[in-house]
């Protein structure tokens, strides 16, 4: 940019005088407000509203999957139980896994990013807001599609991993496997889009002063995760497409008799499936850092180590997929490499844990708040899962416990202990920012301790069940095996979990109604989301802050001048440079529109149609294309250029 265009520091800028700010606020309110009414609700593009919807919807699916789990626990509570028939049980456990992975865990962590990343980087909004809206609708329609099909007895019944040949054309009768494969397409589109929005926001819209090494750790986590999504999801995109083609168009990717290979599926699926676990896990690491830092009232110990270990986890996470296939009889040589990788991936995580403990150790009067309880439980619960993970990395031991309840215990300790606990902590932590009210302390502690107890009661016995030989995915077991008592214990624990989540829900509702009103920074946090009101205005900040340190709110002495000069008549955001966040140019992000919804509907039509008739893909593509054109077509009212080619100068004038 030419010197004439460079940003400049202005003293006594009238735009920051009280009067100027009120004037600005009025205009921003008008420019950024969401249209009212149902139409307005459907055309919403504000990242906070979409993020909230994502979170609420994801938790709704969480509840559904939880209820399915309850059904399974009832069925397994005693031997030879006939509460669920095998056909239904198989659908139920498949739905449970699929929902938890694709409709809860991944969407909800990405959604936390969607809501908070723009706030934490001090941006007016998110990049590509309409695309974000589209991704929400795709997620919602995908989820509805799955559950409608389930209620219509077309629920997937091949497990969340859908191994051919069982899920293939010959043995996967009916449309159940197609439904599963197409749900994957829905969620994949959705999360790839969110990843793109987050990457663009994080790299190009950080407020001036927030160089990469000043980014909050949660933002780092979301950046890492977005990249993981980008490189992991295509694998399942490819494999689920091949599966559908095998089933509908009689291709032979997984048909060994015609040169295909069932194991090709397993390689592709786990090349996605294992990173998937870290996609769920890494954001939780970011949340842990935010909560622990704030509660310890000091910066998290070892910022650089934290960042590097998240990146390392992401990288190694792509090199361990074969440890899901140790029992398939692959050559030994390869296996030991994957054992080593799977064991070494523990190192970065353990460094982070030690870093957090160090942070707590040297805290300035640690505040044992509810969010901290959730974060602290990570040390006790997740670590168990991590260690049993190390055991599973060993080929000989894995070949004994693979596909037993030992593994079920392991990954619930990892995913619930490593992701859901921090997530719930983050929900309590950011609840005041999202709603303007604090969550109830007493109920909060109650639900935490109930969850903690219930969780261990449910899943710890499963280690033993595994060691005593109980396989996964069995709808019942004979009394002679003696697994009854442990299973009963687990079922009771599940009841306690159910109770705790009920308390959590009650707490949310009562707090929304009558919770203590939260000021802008109730926990004394250090990052920018606490610099704006609770809940934030549609335009996030007035004026947009800039930063001169990693913990701007803890260093008032390092004041840095706020941003002025963004046009408040347009939804204008400040685009900055990737590394040092130097102001680069101003960019108008699009406002509310119905096109994302329309396009999502058209895409949904195409996806669903295509699993019943191959031509559905072609016919369904037409409305999709039409919607995209409508979406892309520029709105009138902009200055039309004369047919004669304008010179650069005149154009520039006509534009600014």
């Amino acid at each position: 940019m030419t010197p004439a265009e460079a940003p400049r520091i202005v003293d006594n800028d009238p735009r920051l005088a009280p009067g100027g700010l009120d004037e600005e606020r009025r205009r921003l309110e008008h420019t950024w407000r969401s249209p009212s009414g149902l139409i307005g609700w459907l055309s919403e593009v504000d990242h906070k509203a979409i993020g909230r919807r994502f979170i609420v919807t994801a938790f709704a699916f969480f509840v559904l999957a939880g209820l399915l789990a309850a059904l399974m626990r009832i069925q397994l509570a005693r031997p030879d139980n006939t509460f669920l028939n095998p056909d239904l049980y198989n659908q139920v456990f498949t739905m449970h896994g699929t929902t938890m992975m694709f409709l809860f865990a991944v969407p909800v962590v990405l959604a936390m990013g969607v809501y908070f990343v723009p706030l934490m980087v001090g941006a007016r909004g998110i990049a590509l807001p309409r695309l974000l809206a589209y991704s929400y609708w795709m997620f919602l329609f995908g989820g509805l599609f799955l559950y409608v099909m389930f209620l219509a007895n077309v629920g997937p019944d091949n497990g969340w991993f859908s191994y051919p040949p069982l899920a293939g054309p010959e043995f996967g009768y009916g449309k159940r496997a197609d439904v599963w494969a197409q749900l994957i397409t829905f969620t994949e589109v959705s999360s790839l889009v969110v990843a793109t929005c987050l990457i663009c926001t994080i790299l190009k819209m950080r407020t001036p002063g927030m160089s990469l090494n000043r980014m909050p750790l949660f933002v780092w986590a979301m950046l890492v995760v977005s990249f993981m999504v980008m490189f992991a999801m295509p694998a399942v995109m490819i494999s689920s497409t091949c599966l559908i083609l095998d089933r509908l168009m009689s291709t032979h990717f997984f048909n060994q008799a015609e040169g295909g290979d069932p194991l090709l599926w397993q390689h592709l699926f786990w090349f996605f499936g294992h990173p998937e676990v870290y996609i769920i896990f890494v954001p939780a690491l970011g949340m842990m850092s935010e909560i622990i830092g704030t509660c310890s009232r000091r910066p998290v110990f070892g910022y650089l180590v934290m960042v590097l270990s998240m990146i390392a986890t992401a990288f190694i996470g792509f090199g361990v997929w074969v440890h899901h296939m140790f029992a398939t009889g692959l050559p030994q040589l390869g296996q030991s490499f994957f054992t080593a990788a799977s064991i070494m991936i523990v190192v970065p995580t353990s460094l982070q844990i030690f870093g957090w403990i160090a942070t707590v150790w040297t805290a300035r009067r640690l505040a044992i708040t509810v969010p901290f309880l959730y974060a602290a439980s990570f040390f006790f619960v997740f670590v168990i899962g991590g260690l049993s993970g190390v055991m599973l990395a060993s080929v000989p031991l894995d070949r004994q416990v693979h596909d037993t309840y030992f593994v079920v215990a392991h990954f619930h300790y990892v995913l619930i202990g490593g992701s859901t606990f921090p997530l719930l902590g983050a929900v309590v932590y950011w609840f005041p920012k999202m709603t303007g009210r604090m969550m109830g302390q007493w109920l909060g502690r109650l639900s935490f301790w109930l969850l903690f107890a219930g969780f261990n009661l449910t899943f710890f016995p499963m280690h033993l069940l595994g060691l005593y030989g109980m396989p996964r995915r069995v709808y019942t077991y004979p009394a002679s095996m003696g697994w009854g008592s442990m299973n009963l214990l687990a079922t009771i624990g599940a009841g306690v979990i159910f109770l705790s989540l009920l308390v959590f829900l009650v707490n949310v509702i009562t707090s929304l109604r009558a919770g203590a009103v939260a000021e802008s920074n109730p926990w004394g946090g250090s990052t920018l989301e606490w610099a704006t009101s609770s809940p934030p205005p549609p335009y996030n900040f007035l004026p947009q802050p800039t930063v001169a340190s990693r913990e701007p709110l803890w260093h008032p002495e390092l004041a840095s001048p706020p941003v002025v000069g963004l046009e408040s008549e347009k939804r204008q955001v400040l685009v900055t440079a990737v590394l040092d966040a130097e102001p680069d140019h101003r960019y108008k992000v699009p406002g509310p529109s119905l096109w994302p919804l329309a396009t999502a509907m058209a895409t949904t039509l195409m996806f669903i149609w295509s699993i019943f008739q191959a031509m559905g893909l072609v016919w369904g593509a037409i409305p999709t294309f039409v919607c995209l054109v409508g979406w892309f077509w520029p709105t009138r009212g902009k200055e039309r250029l004369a047919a004669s080619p304008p010179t650069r100068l005149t154009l520039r004038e006509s534009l600014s």
Partner: protein
Amino acid sequence: MPHLQSIIHPAGIQAARVSHLWWVMFWICAVVWAAVAVTAMVAIARGRRGSSTATDAQMARSVTVAGGLSVAALLGLLFQSIVTGRALDTLRSPDALRIQVTGNQWWWDVQYEHAVPSRRVTTANEIHIPVGRAIRFDLLSTDVIHSLWIPSLQGKIDLVPGRLNELWLRADEPGIYRGQCAEYCGLQHAKMALVVVAEPPDDFERWLTANRAPASPPTTPEQQRGRDIFERGPCAMCHTIAGTSAGGRSAPDLTHLGSRSTIGAGTLPNTKGYLAGWIADPQHIKPGNRMPPTGLNGEELQAVLAYLETLK
């Protein structure tokens, strides 16, 4: 809990090695967990008082030490694992007994290899092995992926269509061990079990010769009638009984059914009562399995039972 299928109550060399590995890993991990938990508690207690005077430099040092320790522990585990893996491979030997196990939805077809095809022994859902001799299982599948798992003797290996996998094990204590399919294989994955009988070598040889013989002909008229029903009725469409005209291949071989301890792939004990219930309405006991309700009347059923009982 009973040890029918327990990983930590091994009855063979392979399982014993793995069980040993388990205990090593368990204790190391237990210590690590306790260390982390205690440190975390102390940290929380100190953090609450905000009393810690430790500088970040000191903290950095302890974090580095902790990191170093965990790397050391991990390397130890890796080493243990590789050593065990090596040891497991040493069982392979040319004079092993070869048994071919074929997975079907939802039962196991078992064949004892022999150079002379007619001297092969075919049975189902029950494997007899001699104690103290290396066994090599050749694993195949006719439909989907299954996994053969006999926890007391050895870890699992999948039965993958179009591939030939091997499983090597050795039983060191005579006894009856239970195995089960460990890879989700559809509707009745839960009821796809098998029984492994480890017996002294000469007992085993006796069993093998007994099972080479075709079915003994019926003696009483009722048994006679039972065989006729079996051959002419629905049974023979799927089941084989060597020495009769029943040659169906899509269900377990029943030539020596009487000598087996379970029916329905380890679902029920093989007693006359259960067998009657099974033949009358298999779909009630194991919903969705491939044996249809036969619709025999009481008298026919009794005859068939009487005949099946003779198949020792």
